[in-house]
């Protein structure tokens, strides 16, 4: 636990050391929310496009934006964090510490996830206080539960991606894969407006229950089944990805590439 806290604190200090980037990050997210707010005010909905209980397209897209932050933080930040360690030369010394590889992986994931949660809270507050998002039927406990279980569900993918980075020293494909998954599974557009073949792909993406569940929790639906599906994904992917991560480190030690970038 102390290793997790130490690594999270390290990432907080590193993020805070880039003050302009930190501020830009928050500002960019706010602009993103505003863009969908104004789009929602000028563009009508396609006939038959269901909004999963959301009172407006803005509310629908906002839920997608918020969940995408969580999915992306859990799914790709470990890989990019470890890639950074390779480039700066700190990975070898980190691996040489008496810390379990699982602690290393979860410790690298901890701050990005907490930071994503903080951004979600900020953008939600802006949407409620400044943009009139109705929260009369919101189940806040459900919102919190969906954000946490989504983080757990996608951290397995993130650890597997980190394992690939340790071996191949490239991580860009993870960001592309996450973007594609979120796009086709209803982050910003209802599945019903996508072509049939994309709808079929979108329906089986693990990101779909994350978006559906958060919208249900925000707009008065039932989120329990989606949370259970995500917990199942987590139970399946986390142990497998931890084994992959361990194997990747062993491979790098055998090849002598731990200190290479």
């Amino acid at each position, binding site marked *: 636990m*102390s290793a997790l806290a130490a690594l999270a604190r390290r990432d907080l200090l590193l993020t805070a050391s880039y003050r302009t980037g930190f501020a830009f990050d928050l500002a960019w997210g706010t602009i993103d929310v505003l863009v969908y707010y104004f789009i929602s005010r000028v563009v009508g909905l396609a006939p038959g496009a269901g909004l999963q209980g959301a009172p407006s397209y803005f509310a629908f897209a906002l839920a997608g934006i918020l969940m995408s932050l969580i999915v992306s933080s859990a799914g790709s930040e470990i890989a990019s964090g470890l890639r950074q360690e390779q480039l700066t030369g700190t990975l070898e010394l980190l691996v040489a510490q008496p810390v379990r590889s699982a602690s290393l992986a979860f410790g690298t994931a901890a701050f990005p996830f907490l930071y994503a949660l903080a951004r979600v809270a900020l953008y939600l507050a802006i949407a409620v206080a400044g943009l009139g998002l109705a929260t009369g039927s919101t189940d806040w406990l459900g919102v919190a539960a969906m954000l946490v279980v989504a983080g757990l569900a996608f951290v397995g993918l993130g650890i597997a991606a980190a394992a690939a980075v340790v071996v191949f020293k490239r991580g860009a494909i993870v960001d592309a894969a996450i973007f594609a998954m979120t796009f086709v599974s209803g982050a910003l557009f209802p599945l019903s407006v996508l072509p049939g073949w994309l709808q079929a792909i979108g329906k089986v993406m693990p990101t779909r229950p994350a978006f559906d569940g958060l919208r249900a929790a925000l707009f008065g639906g039932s989120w329990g089944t989606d949370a259970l599906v995500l917990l199942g994904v987590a139970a399946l992917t986390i142990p497998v990805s931890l084994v992959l991560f361990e194997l990747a480190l062993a491979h790098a030690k055998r090849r*002598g590439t*731990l200190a290479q970038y």
Partner: protein
Amino acid sequence: MLQIDRLARCFGARGVLADVTLQVDRGQRLALHGPNGSGKTTLLRCLLGTLTPSSGSVSVGGHRAGTRAARAATGASLAQERSFYLRLTGGENLRLFARLRGVPAAAVDALVDELALHELVAQRADRCSTGQLQQLAFVRALLGDPPLLLLDEPTRSLDADARARLWAALDRRMDAAVVFATHLDDDLAHATSVHELAR
């Protein structure tokens, strides 16, 4: 404390180390001496467990090198200039590694006092010179008083005062087994035994 048995390491077809057998007990200080490219750092990495030998074995306090128990017993300073979070201060870097090793923050302060590095710990690592980073790396290796110390060219970029402080600090840790790599003949005077490596 450290047992190396018929260790060999190749990179592709190129053999870097062959048939290295050594034993280092507590209180001993072994110098790995040889020119650049003779395999000193490669051997240290094998002892640290971040590089797996092609054949042979390394045991630290009875544990295979690289296992968690062996890592807990080993303090290392390798490739210093690339192993710090450069946007953090020296102190933040040391406290991070102390936490990872389960060492209290007070131990960091004690080491900083001992090696007179107060200015350094307040400074961001990217504003430290190579020699200053090397001193930080040495302090990091000492965190938690590990019984085995692995030091890669520990005096390379140090001025005379810093070198004296380093050897004095090692002299105060007579219980530790120390393996250090060097190509400087002056350093050999501080070793209890020398293992020559050739290219």
